């Protein structure tokens, strides 16, 4: 187990190194490059030259890459040049990261809480009305563009009905900040109105973001339960007279959960991509919003950090998922 983890971490480092090179090359290939992004299109040639040598852009590429790696390793990614000008991008990231974590945790919880039970029930009553309806629902939630769903939810519940807020993370209320996670802060300081207010802001974006993962989790659960419930060990359990609840829990669900666990991990990427769209629609100040704005305003240092972090998070989640196999399925532990 430990050796496996170490090997995976080693692989991750290699992929990250390759990725940093890709991002580095990408950054240098972007139209205009960092100099014109910093100075604007109408900079004098002298100013451009000065800045070029200041930024070390006149050095050979491999020197630049090593310098980029060294400063990145020491946590220095430079200052934002568009989204929050002048502020170190690491700080922008740290301010916005909790927002996205809150949103994605809500979304994945929602997707799991609806997807797994629905998938289980649908498989157990295969071909029934609930089965058919939930399959149609899950197909539509993949086919619908995420940002359109977000706009639709915003239009119905925020604009027309006015029951939920249409943008932001929290209204301008007097709330104490402790961790940057607004919901957690409210619980820690026992400011329940702040908790409620943050949760209200989370409902619509979380539903929009949950649509795709819900659909995938539902369908994988349904397929996995269908596969497992005809297995010999389930028949054995039935014939030795175990109760339905025990069979469901110990024999069917536990074995069906393996593919579902992988799927949940793989949804991390979809969630992050979805967050870019959802956060933009709801002006939700998270990483996704920063990414969308960063691309519009060509904020290269910010994009560099955010894409690298996105990749790290994505890979880390997949590692955790692979490791969690061992907990669900003892057979994997040996290998």
């Amino acid at each position, binding site marked *: 187990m430990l050796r496996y983890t170490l090997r995976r971490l080693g692989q991750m480092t290699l992929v990250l190194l390759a990725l940093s090179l890709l991002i580095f090359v990408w950054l240098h290939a972007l139209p205009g490059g960092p100099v014109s992004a910093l100075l604007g299109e109408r900079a004098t040639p002298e100013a451009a030259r000065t800045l070029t040598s200041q930024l070390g852009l006149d050095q050979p590429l491999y020197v630049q890459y090593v310098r980029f790696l060294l400063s990145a390793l020491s946590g220095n990614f430079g200052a934002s040049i568009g989204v929050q000008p002048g502020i170190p991008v690491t700080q922008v990231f740290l301010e916005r990261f909790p927002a996205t974590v809150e949103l994605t945790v809500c979304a994945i919880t929602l997707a799991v809480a609806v997807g797994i039970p629905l998938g289980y029930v649908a498989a157990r009553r295969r071909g029934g009305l609930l089965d058919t309806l939930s399959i149609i629902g899950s197909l539509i939630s993949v086919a619908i*563009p995420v940002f359109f769903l977000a706009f639709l939810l915003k239009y119905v519940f925020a604009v027309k009905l006015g029951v939920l807020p249409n943008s932001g993370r929290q209204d301008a209320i007097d709330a104490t900040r402790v961790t940057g996670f607004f919901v957690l802060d409210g619980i820690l300081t026992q400011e329940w109105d702040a908790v409620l207010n943050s949760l209200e802001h989370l409902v619509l974006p979380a539903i929009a973001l949950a649509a795709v993962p819900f659909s995938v989790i539902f369908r994988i659960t349904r397929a996995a339960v269908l596969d497992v419930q005809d297995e010999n060990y389930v028949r054995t359990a039935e014939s030795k007279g175990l109760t339905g609840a025990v069979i469901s829990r110990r024999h069917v669900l536990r074995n069906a959960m393996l593919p579902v666990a992988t799927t949940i991990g793989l949804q991390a990427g979809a969630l992050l*991509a979805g967050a870019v769209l959802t956060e933009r629609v709801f002006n939700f100040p998270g990483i996704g919003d920063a990414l969308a704005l960063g691309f519009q305003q060509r904020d290269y240092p910010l994009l560099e950090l955010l894409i690298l972090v996105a990749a790290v998070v994505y890979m880390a989640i997949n590692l955790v998922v692979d490791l969690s196999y061992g907990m669900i399925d003892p057979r994997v532990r040996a290998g």
Partner: protein
Amino acid sequence: MVITTRKKRVDELARADMETSLVAGAWRRLRRIPVFFVGVTIMAGFVLVALSAPWLAPHDPTAALLLDQVSKARNTIPAPQPGYPLGGDDQGRDLLSRLLIGSRQTLLVGVLATLIGFAGGLVLGTVAGALASWVDTVIMRVVDAMLSIPSLLLAVSIAALFAHPSQLTVILAVAVVQIPIFARLLRGSMLAQRVSDHVLAAQALGVRPSAVVFRHMLPNALSPVIVLATIVLATSIIDAAALSFLGLGNPDDTVPEWGQMLARAQDVFDTHPELAFWPASCIIVVALGFTLCGESLRDALDPKNRR
């Protein structure tokens, strides 16, 4: 002499194996899946509309025919009226005509993006799966690095590389993202083919390595890839819409495309949601059609379902 006839025999076997057990068998199972026909109908309808759009569209999609009914101050757009069943957009252009003509670009985006992704994945996956040496390792590491970035993020990064966004840059960005997915799938099924009996038999009979790869391995490895292609076509259309929404789409709206129409409608969504509703519905129905087809094909081709 004996060997050449045997080679021929192996070729025939490979082909026969494909035709009877794969295509015919798949069709036999497909006929029992009603959803497949729903998907095919939608796909066929979409392609038909796209091909005949210039004759179907009642008006010029770029002409501001109803401009007098557009008022920025009163925030009005042309309502549905005789001759204009869906009304006009915020530029006074006929919405129905734009939707009909828009199907062409949407089809083009989907098909081209899928083809490019498929071609790239085909080359990488075949090389990796056929050679299975250090080349395989290198290719798969690159593919892993690409897959370690969430797909939309990768598409957006690629789209940002171009100083002047256009329909072509959108297609390229959406397509490149699909390459590693195709490559990985194809490599997997090529590896499975490498150790299969008919490939070993062909090798034992001294069939040229290139013939083994292209005549015996590749055709049999393609079926899961074709399933993926139908699903990728749907996601390409949706991803292209997302790129437009993020401001990286084709800025030229004289050539309408559904994703672009949907993205442009966001500014007036609170007052005129119908402008977004129509292109969104078109995208959803078409995406659904391709997904249904792909899923039924997957079920039909799945060896587990063979009886």
